[in-house]
């Protein structure tokens, strides 16, 4: 197992964000987490990434996880290539090598030709790819991605998802992927973890039976539609509860 989470809970003051979550992820696996807004997905991810201390429970991660955050995180004062090389620079990789590796990764995420641009000179989706490249170039054993395509339209996110699939196949990385999109989850994952409304617990883990490799044309497959419906069935009630809970506050 690359990642083991046991009985994890997190409370912020009087807000119970995550309750008793247990999860094991195998090497090379792609696991998605879906759940209503505010159910503790980002919190769970930041605990796994070592950025937040859990209130209770245990985590075991091999190596330093690479994280792609929900918010835009490209450094505005660095060019694309300087952004992507940042982690390598901080871990003491020599200049020539880190530039070569950064350039290769930029090519891989489809940003070739934009190496010397600043993030403000790119589109939102391109900026997100800078953040993804900055994480991937470190070759982390496990990658945590928090709605990396959240701000994008459905078409763009499916195309980027395809790219991500390709990159992952090439690097055999393990991915924990948070998303709101069932299409994205079904396109990318081996397993899909459905969470309840806050306090977030695991409602059900759905194993994705769709054969690999997949590309975005799979969305028109009838089996895809059936699975999507199943996920929605699971999540509908939780999303309504989450909304009711927010109104009640």
């Amino acid at each position: 197992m690359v990642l083991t989470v046991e009985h994890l809970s997190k409370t912020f003051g009087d807000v119970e964000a995550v309750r008793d979550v247990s999860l094991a992820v195998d090497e090379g696996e792609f696991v998605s987490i879906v759940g209503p807004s505010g159910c503790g997905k980002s919190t769970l991810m930041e605990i796994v990434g070592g950025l937040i201390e859990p209130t209770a429970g245990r985590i075991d991660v091999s190596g330093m996880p690479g994280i792609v955050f929900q918010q835009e995180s490209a450094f505005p004062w660095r060019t694309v290539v300087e952004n992507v090389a940042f982690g390598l620079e901080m871990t003491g990789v020599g200049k020539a090598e880190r530039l070569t590796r950064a350039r290769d990764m930029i090519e891989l995420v489809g940003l070739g030709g934009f190496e010397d641009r600043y993030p403000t000179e790119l589109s939102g989706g391109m900026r997100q790819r800078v953040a993804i490249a900055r994480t991937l170039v470190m070759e982390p054993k496990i990658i945590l991605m928090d709605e990396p395509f959240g701000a994008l339209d459905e078409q763009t996110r499916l195309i980027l998802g395809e790219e991500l699939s390709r990159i992952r196949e090439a690097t055999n990385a393990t991915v924990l992927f948070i998303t709101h999109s069932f299409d994205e989850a079904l396109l990318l994952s081996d397993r899909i973890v459905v969470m309840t409304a806050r306090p977030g617990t695991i409602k059900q883990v759905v194993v994705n039976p769709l054969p690999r490799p997949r590309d975005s044309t799979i969305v028109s497959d009838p089996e895809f539609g059936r699975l999507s419906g199943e996920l929605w069935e699971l999540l509908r009630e939780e999303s309504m509860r989450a909304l009711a809970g927010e109104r009640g506050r």
Partner: protein
Amino acid sequence: MSEARRVRATRWGLVLAFLALIEIIPRLGLVNPIALVPLSEMVWQLWLLLKDGTLADHILRTLTSIVAAGALAVVTGLPLGVALWRLETTRRILQPYLTTYYAIPIFAFYPLFIAIFGLGSMPVIIIAWAWAVVAIVLQTVIGLDAVPPVLVKVGRSLRLSSWRMFTRIYFPAATPHIFTGFKLAASYTVIGVIASEFIQAEKGVGFFVGFSYNNFAIQNMYAAILLILVFAVALNSGLLALERKLYGRQG
């Protein structure tokens, strides 16, 4: 003509119209000739004063004071700002003083500084520094506070040391704000130096303005004012250009 170009053209037009008025009004005898001299005479007088070296000493003194006070404001303001940002409690205590700081007419304390340091560059530099430094302190705190938490998380996810967190994330993220502090401080330094020289000093361009005024040397006075204006505008434009060059592409 595009909207932006029309705006720019109008802006320059206003400047030219203003300059033309300064030229024409005294020539038409609309004001007392000892109150205002035509622009061309100011320029000519300034040229004469520069050529015969009358202003050299004053300019040197003023520039030295400005550079000294400005440099002092930067080297003290930055660390003070960083310290204040780090020290939560100290900051909460000082908050109301800092925010009302610019409501204090600090020039009222100038005689005190003269009494302490004597009538030389020192009290001038102290006043200008005191007037400028707080802008840098405040902008530094504001800039460091405004660093998006997600950028900090990126650093922490790479397990950066606190030194690197500061030099590689907080500081570069805050520099656009800090540069604004520098720009303000530059203006405040110039104002601080010129104004205190004007109030009381033995040398300096500000002193020269006051001295000329008291001795009815109205042309000299306007020549020196013109010099100050040109200098202030040039300094500001220079800093704006530098800002655009440094941060223009960072948005």
